[in-house]
């Protein structure tokens, strides 16, 4: 049966196949952003599976075919996708739009690496006010590609930005409960610098920004000493990064592991969690994953 469908597909001129805008998004956070703005007017394919570290992503042929057929590719940018971003940028020369959502944010809001001024921290989604700015670039590009639905995109975009603002206020109020001497967030890799800046927490990533390098022994001993000396209540593992270094710190210093945070990837769809206060959230979405992180941190570091 399917062989006939293939023949029909071959004979159909491509303009008859024109449907909604076909968008591909790289990370699960970007995919959630594009789905939220696009709604039913955009077909969104997320490339990097849930729970997979974007640095480690290897494409399959199905992924490449999605990219070949896409009208637009949304990616985070600022180095999150490694070399894949270069390939995506070159797609522009084939007529496919390639949009780095993090790169639309003015540089003065970005955290630069002191040693390498060209290298900004890509994990901007951990400040919802910055992520709200990324919404604008998605709205703009989708409206250009499909003017007939521009109003829908704008309306959804505005609602989304507003919801991110209120998420930020909720997070700020929740995290304010952590006493000053405990405001220190130790995680597997350096994904939470924007989070720390937004909510006034000191952030230590054991592995540095890239998830590929291993943590040095001196990094581990330094953090162990710090944890012991300051009686920090908990350290955190991440869902998409190896937890070995953090477990090591937990064992050596006796501090407990406060929970698992979503860092470079959201949770798996279909899983609904409940907060201690009975709030329901879905960690496969940006908002749900962010809420989970805040609740976990407050639970482990708060009194």
């Amino acid at each position, binding site marked *: 049966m399917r062989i006939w469908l293939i023949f029909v597909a071959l004979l159909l001129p491509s303009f008859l196949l024109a449907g909604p805008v076909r968008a591909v998004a790289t990370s699960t956070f970007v995919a959630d952003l594009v789905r939220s703005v696009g709604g039913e007017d955009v077909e969104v394919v997320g490339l990097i599976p849930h729970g997979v570290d974007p640095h480690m992503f290897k494409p399959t*042929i199905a992924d*490449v075919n999605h990219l070949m057929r896409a009208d637009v590719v949304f990616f985070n940018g600022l180095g999150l996708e490694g070399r894949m971003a270069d390939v995506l940028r070159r797609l522009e020369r084939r007529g496919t739009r390639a949009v780095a959502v993090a790169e639309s944010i003015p540089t003065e809001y970005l955290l630069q690496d002191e040693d390498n001024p060209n290298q900004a921290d890509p994990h901007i989604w951990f400040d919802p006010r910055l992520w709200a700015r990324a919404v604008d670039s998605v709205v703009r590009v989708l409206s250009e590609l499909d003017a007939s639905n521009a109003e829908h995109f704008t309306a959804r975009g505005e609602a989304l930005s507003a919801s991110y603002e209120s998420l930020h206020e909720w997070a700020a109020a929740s995290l304010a409960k952590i006493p000053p001497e405990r405001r220190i967030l130790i995680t597997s890799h350096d994904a939470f610098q924007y989070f720390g800046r937004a909510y006034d927490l000191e952030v230590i990533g054991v592995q*540095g920004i890239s998830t*590929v390098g291993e943590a040095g022994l001196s990094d581990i001993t330094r953090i162990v000493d710090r944890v012991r000396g300051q009686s920090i209540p908990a350290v955190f593992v991440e869902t998409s990064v190896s937890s070995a270094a953090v477990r090591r710190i937990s064992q050596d210093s006796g501090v407990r592991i406060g929970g698992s945070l979503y860092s470079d990837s959201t949770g798996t769809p279909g899983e609904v969690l409940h907060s201690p206060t009975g709030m329901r959230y879905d960690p496969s979405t940006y908002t749900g994953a962010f809420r989970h992180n805040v609740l976990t941190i407050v639970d482990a570091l708060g009194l």
Partner: protein
Amino acid sequence: MSARLEIPAFDWLRVVVEPWALYPETTIWIVLMGWLVSLVCGAVGLFLILRRMAMTGDAISHSVLPGLVLAFLWTASRATLPMMLGALIAGVLSVILIEWIHRSSRVKPDAAMGIVFSLFFAVGVILVTAYADHIDLDADCVLYGEIAYVPLEPMWALAGIELGPAPVMRMAMVGLIVAGLGFLFFKELITTSFDPVLAASLGLSPKAFHYGLMIVLSVVIVSSFEAVGAILVVAMLIFPGATALLLTHRLRLALALLPMIAALHSLLGYHLAVWFDVTVAGSMAVAAGGLLAIAWAVYCIWARVARSSH
């Protein structure tokens, strides 16, 4: 995450027909690229195997790391050209060092190789952790390409006619240069490979040909790394040559078999990747391994038949 081993059903429409019928662009360019890499690396690898230097490719692939890091620190960017140059210089330097160690000491060539490439690799790792810890710098992200992305690359056009994606065209050019050199120096290459003493008495310098081959090897390795990644290159330096040499003792026939072996590697690997929905480079390497096993079986049967007929 649950790790379940599940073999998807073999649906010939999905695995064999659809890639060519619905996604011809993806399929043609990836298969062509796989064929080119297997053929070019295989041809160079064949001579490495004959000279008992098959692991040199592996060694060079590790030695390039410090070159990459230094090129990055020097230019403060991850642009491809300086990276490739850095890798190339490190590769050639490691070859010279291997040669120098085993000539000026009692260290055997294979041990010299082990010393140099682990040393270079270690220096690279130290450089990364010392100077480039806060940035994304690892060979995986910086130098190694991915064969699956080949059809997405911009097309090279000549007089308005689209020739093909840039990596395929660059690989084809490297292939042409290697083939040209091989053609020009075929006799000399054979003589220096099999009988260095005879070669020297004929006025050929085995040393010059050794370094020439090593430079060609470094160029092939670095440029194919950039296009298709490490696994495929390291595999294709060994498998095509080894497979051909199992099937025949005659060098010319082995070389003639390479294009067919390379085509099988590429096609089988591609469809294996579609079938299991996994990485293309890994599948092609696995296909090459499978083909080697078949060639081995053929060789064993052949040998038995030949013995019993005597």
